[in-house]
């Protein structure tokens, strides 16, 4: 799937080029939006192969179109993070969240 299609998949309005996507790994507490794409292009250093991480994220419910919000951050280096993903809560490390691209809510 190419990136443009993936964004189109989530029925975003507005011209594509004006959409800035933010990686979930860079979000702060209170950051919220909709997941625009999930792909772990780059393998996490010392972690899983990219395609495996992508599938794990998908299986945990990190899919295009899902509502996401960062609820809590760890106390050392703001890591790991606890996110509200649709109606469930999931904890993950920032390095594993790198490939989750979010279209932030307008206010941000």
């Amino acid at each position, binding site marked *: 799937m190419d990136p443009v299609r993936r964004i189109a998949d989530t029925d975003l309005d507005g011209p594509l080029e004006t959409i800035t996507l933010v990686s979930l790994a860079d979000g702060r507490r209170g950051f919220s939006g909709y997941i625009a794409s999930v792909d772990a292009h780059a393998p996490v250093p010392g*972690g899983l192969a990219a395609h495996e991480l992508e599938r*794990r994220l*998908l*299986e945990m419910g990190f899919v295009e*179109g899902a509502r996401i919000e960062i609820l809590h951050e760890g*106390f050392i280096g703001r890591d790991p993070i606890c996110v509200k993903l649709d109606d469930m809560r*999931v*904890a993950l490390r920032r390095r594993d969240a790198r490939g989750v691209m979010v279209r932030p809510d307008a206010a941000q």
Partner: protein
Amino acid sequence: MTPPDLATAVAAAAGGAPAAPIRAALVGNPNSGKTAMFNALTGSRQKVANYAGVTVERKEGHLIAPDGRRISILDLPGTYSLRARSPDEVVTRDAVLGRLAGETPPDVVVLIADATNLRLVMRLALELRDVGRPAVLALNMIDIATRQGLEIDATRLAIELSMPVVTTVATRKRGIDELVIQIEAQAANSATAPADTWTEPSAAALRALHREAERILKACVLPPRRPDTFTGKLDSVLLHPVAGIGVLLVVLFLMFQAVFAWAAPLMDLSNAGFEALGAVMGNLMPDGLLKSLITDGIIAGVGSVVVFLPQIVILFLFIILLEDFGYMARAAFLLDKIMGGAGLHGRAFIPLLSSFACAIPGIMATRVIDNKRDRLTTILVAPLMTCSARIPVYTLIISAFIPRQQVWGVLSLQGLIFFGLYAAGLISALVVAWLVRKVFWRGAAEPFLMELPAYKIPDPMNVARNVLQRAQIFLQRAGTIILSMMILIWFLCTFPGAPAGAVGPAIDYSFAGMIGHAIQPVLAPIGFNWQMSVALIPGMAAREVAVGALGTVYAVAGADTSVLGASLAHQWSLASALAFLAWYVFAPQCASTLGVVKRETNSWRWPIIMFCYMTGLAYVASLIVYQTAVAMGAG
């Protein structure tokens, strides 16, 4: 007549041969209430074993349906997907697909779903539907769903998923009868189940399944009118960077206190009981080998198993309460960064903390870690934490050799050394864990990706049952191996007996004495004399036994260790004493620990690795301590 026989007889009397038993398997996401459902279905008719060749627990039970048919229930490890990511999940997948060697494929798969959290389980349901085996969906925790005003169109859901749907409350045993009826009905279709053609879904296939699940959810489920706000509110305290850590420390402190201090009276009681029993038997029986076997071998051996029971029960009570309440995942979240730095999983803090009391419950508690490698790393380092059995040894040596003086006016030197020994254990555990990660299991560090379940008040019956089950597993499995090791050590210390007219303690003439003398040259560079070397062999029974063993080889009788201490202070150099302390920080001087590792990992490989690396560490540490001390004039 046992119930199954009775049921069969009733069925036979009703005319018609008893129908063949049905095999059902429970599948579900973690925290869906699968364990509670298993208990509700099978009551106490359960059996816990291991799958052949893996460490995964196999829980099976059975029930008798109202028509007399026997239904056996297999509880499979929780999973989010058939695409297995851990040994536990491999078992689940292979059991569902009928690929598991030595297992008959289940006739019916029962999918347990948390009705308040259907999104992920819907995808698993679709995966199961596509596999085509007869299945039943149990919408569990329907009580909570109703309270939240969640509406689920079960009829529509059943059509979409092409499997019957029942609603249940596992902890209250509601909806169980209906579930059993549906299991029986579905079992009739098992003969026509299609062949196994399952392959791992690709990322694209997963996305498609998600979209399908989303569509079904939209069609069948109305969102809750009164959603759970309690979990969110509690989380804003419990996951708070400051308050959350504070609460966590209090919880950890309580747990440590409980395992360490609350268990102590019970352990003393059990020790005293077995000692009294040994004394009574000793008085009743004539002196001789049989008496020695019964009092020193068997009674002392059984006693050394039972003595762990209070700690195991208390520890698992805490673990199961925290797990059922939903706090365990939060604690792992808070500690992930610290534990992760040493290459350990966030959940490893429970086994490691427990190991300060005793490595046996600690190693049993590594079950809270799902990933196999993380679990093995934790098992390997758990015995490095300073367990309570080391305290008598430390106390004996420190009070005999370290002067009672103050350092910098306020700190006692003895206390400082004590603290240093604790710190050495803790730091070496973290370093070893880090090394294991870096050297042996380079590459695939598991991502930390964990659902934080909604908080729930634990169900007392469920908790009690699970704690009892742990105690039973410990006595049955770990107990037998600990007992046999104790008898082996007794044998080594007793045979052959001392010749007539021998001088010196009898142990000197036994196999243990021979081994001690044989290894003494190897231990000479670390400052151990032959008495110390001999004492190491009976000291394998448990670390604190070393105190008694030293008493035996130095023929210092009596319970007062200060006499022994004074005697040691005469005969050992300070350097030897310090080397002995260093040895006890690291050495695997505990046969029970090795036995439990064997049980928990289902192979001799890990206890052997543990024995070798700990002995190596102990040797190097003692060597450095002894040689340095000698060089500084303490030899």
